[in-house]
Structures are given as structure tokens and as C-alpha cells.
């Protein structure tokens, strides 16, 4: 919708767009998280009453805070240390996967035959669970960092390829022709118009991919890992240390949110129409 420039209405009038005002949106979100914690606490303390089955939020927080700085006795590493190891794996896999995925997506958008060639492979690999590849990756690449990064990257590639191709396809011919008749060369049009116009959608693909990378971290760290949040969760499970499992899960959630916030910030920067 075209809007009136200069001064835009804000606050209550936004209600009519079906969007809650910003402050109220935040209040409701914070309230629902608080409510979730209360339900969790009641379920743990009143209903289950067994910290091995379900530790409450307070007990979990205690364990979480203790092992942030103190190494866990079984593996001699703090949770921060584990988090850094997992973060490095996720970022490496995400970076490798993004580069390959963007390149594949660009070729799909640019070369007609290439898309027909690549499409079936993308459709086949997308629904496969990362866990299924663990044994074969160990056979092929051993138990070092390589198979871990490859496993994460393998999940990222199809998502990035699809969103990049869709982003580049979505740029209208009129917009490209517009650049050409303003004197832009084919190269300049490709770089400064087609790719630039597809950027918001490519970043959306990246946001999906980062989430996906974290979802495969436990599978990744089943590959003979000796550190990392997935490793902590697997270990804690064997020792029935449920509050440590929850601590690992909470850290993964926090890191996932943090990276997503950074990418959202980048998107906000690249796409002015996201701003009011």
C-alpha cells in the first residue's frame, strides 16, 4: 500500500493493519515466556516432583550458571567452552553451505538446463534426516572436523540454493531493463540490480539455514566428538543429568536467537521497506 510520506501514523492506528503496536507486541511476548516458565515450574515442583525426570527452571538455571564457568567433571570443559566449539562448527558449516548454495542457486537462475539437472537432487536431499548420513560420513571422512562441517553444510546447501534462485527469479524484467536503459552494462545490472534486489530473500534463506544448522548439531556431535553442546547433551543423557540436558538446550536456543537477530538486523539494513 502506498502511504503518506513525511509523518506516518504510529501507535494505536497500526491496530487497523492487523499488527499490534510494538510495545504491546513485546509485552505479550514477554508475558507468554513468563507464563511458560511458571507452567514449567509448577509441572516440575507440584506434578512430577522428580528432578531426574523433570528439573524445574530454577534447578536448571543453577546448573547452567555453575557450569558456565566451572568445568563439568566428566569432560573437563565449561559450558562456554562447549558452546564456542559448537558455534565454530555451525558457523563453518553454515558459511561453506551458504557459499555453495548461493553459487548453485545463481546458476539455477541463470542457466535453464542447470535447474532441470539440479532440481531432483535438491528435492531428494531436502527431507533426509542428517542423522542418516552420520555413519557414511565417518566412513568417508573419518572422525575429525571435516565430516561435522560437511554434515551441517549439506543441510544448508539446498535451502540456500532454493532461496537464491527464487530471489533472482523474482527480480522483474522491467527492473533489469530499466537499469539497462539508464546506461548500466549487463555486468553492472547483474551485480547492482539483480543480485542486490534478491538480497533480502537470500538473507531470509540464511535465517532458515542457521536454524537448520543448529538442529543438526546433536547429530553432528555424535561423530566421535569430545566437546560441543550436542556432545554435552548426549553425555548428560547417559548420566541422567536432566538439568544439564536442559542447560545445553537453552544455550542452543539462545545462540540460535542471537545469530537470527544479527541476520535480521542485516536484512533490516538491506531492505528499507522493512522499516516504517
Amino acid at each position: 500500500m502506498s502511504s503518506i510520506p513525511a509523518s506516518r501514523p504510529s501507535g494505536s492506528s497500526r491496530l487497523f493493519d492487523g499488527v499490534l503496536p510494538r510495545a504491546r507486541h513485546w509485552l505479550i511476548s514477554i508475558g507468554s515466556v513468563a507464563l511458560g516458565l511458571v507452567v514449567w515450574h509448577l509441572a516440575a515442583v507440584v506434578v512430577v516432583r522428580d528432578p531426574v525426570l523433570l528439573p524445574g527452571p530454577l534447578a536448571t538455571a543453577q546448573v547452567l550458571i555453575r557450569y558456565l564457568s566451572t568445568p563439568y567433571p566428566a569432560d573437563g570443559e565449561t559450558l562456554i567452552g562447549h558452546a564456542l566449539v559448537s558455534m565454530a562448527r555451525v558457523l563453518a558449516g553454515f558459511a561453506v553451505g551458504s557459499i555453495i548454495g548461493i553459487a548453485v542457486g545463481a546458476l539455477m537462475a541463470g542457466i535453464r538446463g542447470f535447474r532441470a539437472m539440479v532440481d531432483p537432487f535438491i528435492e531428494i536431499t531436502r527431507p533426509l534426516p542428517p542423522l542418516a548420513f552420520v555413519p557414511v560420513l565417518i566412513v568417508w571422512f573419518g572422525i575429525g572436523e571435516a565430516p561435522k562441517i560437511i554434515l551441517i553444510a549439506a543441510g544448508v546447501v539446498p535451502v540456500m540454493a532454493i532461496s537464491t534462485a527464487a530471489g533472482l527469479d523474482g527480480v522483474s524484467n522491467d527492473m533489469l531493463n530499466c537499469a539497462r536503459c539508464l546506461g548500466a552494462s549487463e555486468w553492472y545490472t547483474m551485480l547492482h540490480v539483480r543480485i542486490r534486489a534478491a538480497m533480502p530473500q537470500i538473507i531470509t534463506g540464511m535465517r532458515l539455514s542457521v536454524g537448520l544448522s543448529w538442529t543438526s548439531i546433536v547429530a553432528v556431535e555424535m561423530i566421535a566428538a569430545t566437546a560441543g553442546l550436542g556432545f554435552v547433551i548426549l553425555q548428560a543423557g547417559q548420566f541422567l543429568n536432566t538439568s544439564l540436558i536442559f542447560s545445553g538446550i537453552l544455550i542452543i536456543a539462545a545462540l540460535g536467537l542471537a545469530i537470527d537477530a544479527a541476520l535480521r538486523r542485516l536484512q533490516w539494513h538491506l531492505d528499507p521497506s522493512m522499516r516504517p
Partner: protein
Amino acid sequence: MNGEVGARVEVRSISKIFRRSRQVTQALASVDLCVEPGEFICLLGPSGCGKSTLLHIVAGFIAPDAGEVRVDGIAKTGPGADRCMLFQAPTLFPWLTTIDNVLFGLRARGAITSESRRQAGELLELVGLGSFGGHYPHQLSGGMRHRAALARALINRPRVLLMDEPFAALDAITREAMQNFLLGLWGRERTTIIFVTHDVEEAALLSDRVCVMSGRPGRIIATEEIALGRPRDEVLRDTAEFVSLRRKLRERLADA
């Protein structure tokens, strides 16, 4: 830059056939057209008659199957900054502010100088967007976006403006304002303008000459000189002369 802004555009026996799967469509059949420097002509025709295709060929976006386009006697085979196209949608670049949109042509051609920003500001002033340079396209109204697109086209001092039903999507009031604005601008700059429309009144009001095109295969079946004086204002629309001219064009169009 030549002394005269407008260029002569010659379209010589242009033909174009589109093949989609097994369907073959003759879009244009040997179209000839000569537009004098600084002339304002309208291509008038039913939708799907190939008038838009003809404009795209003149712009160099698509290659004809036969024939050639000459601008001031020089054959053109690709797009260039000498012929600027304005589309039905303003197609501003949404990630650039209004002033950066206007500067796009200069940046793309590597022609940016310390003077460019002031020049772009003046153009925005000219189209009535002087204080909107820092706004993004989504913050502008429909009419404002069209005027910004016009300023963006004008910074290259194009010798030919190609307009593909640029005001068709606007509401009646904004459209009339844009038509008057365009006439005022053309009166000063004397750029050659080829304007595609399916609106009889718009064609009669704006142009020096109306070329009526027939449906598939597209060809020019009638040419009508519009001998009305300029400047043309709202009062003109109600004169007997204008009404009879409009009727004549409508009859020609019905024959198409």
C-alpha cells in the same frame, strides 16, 4: 551534447515473431515509422497489438527478426542511455533513496561528478519532490513514484523517451496531473517522445501525431496529425474540435 535534445527515430520494416512451444505469433509485420526530432507521437492500439513490443525493440531490449532501428541515422542493436524507457510501474529501486535512484544512471555509466548531487536535487525540485530526496520509494505515493522515475530518466538527458502506458495504473486525478506535467516538461526539453497507450483521449491530448496500430500481426494502419494548439489544457477536452478528433480516432481504432 548536440544543440538539439530530441533525436530522429527511424523504424525500418521491423518484424517480430514470438514462438512459444508450438504456438507462433506474428507480433509485428513490417512496421515503418519515422519520428522527427522533438516530436511527441502516440502509438494507439488494442491490447496485444504489439505496440509494447515495438517500443521494447526501439529501446533495444528485444531484437527484431527483421528490420532495424536508427537513432539520428545510427543503427541501434542494444539498450542505451540515449533512449530511456518509462514503464507502467515506476520500477524504482526499492533499496535506494529517491536521490540515489535519480543518480543511478550517472553511477552506472561512471559519469558521477561533484556536481551530480546538486543536479539530481534540481531534477527532484523540477518534479516537485525537492524535499523527498532522502525518502525510500515505499514511502512515496503512486504519483510521486512516477515523478521520481521521470527525474531518474531525465538525469541522463536522453534524446528519446519511450513511455509504455506509464500512467495507465494511476487514478484519474493523478493521471491528469501527470499528463499536464509531462506536457510542460516536454515543452521545455523537446525530447523526442514515443508514447504507447490504449486510451484515445490520452493520445489525442498529448501528441503531435497518433499512429493507430492493428491487432495481430501488428502494423500501423492509420496516422492522424493532431493539429491542436499548445499548450493544451483542461478546457480543450470539451471543445468540439477535440471531441470530433477523438471520435475519428475511435473509429480508426474500431477498424483495427
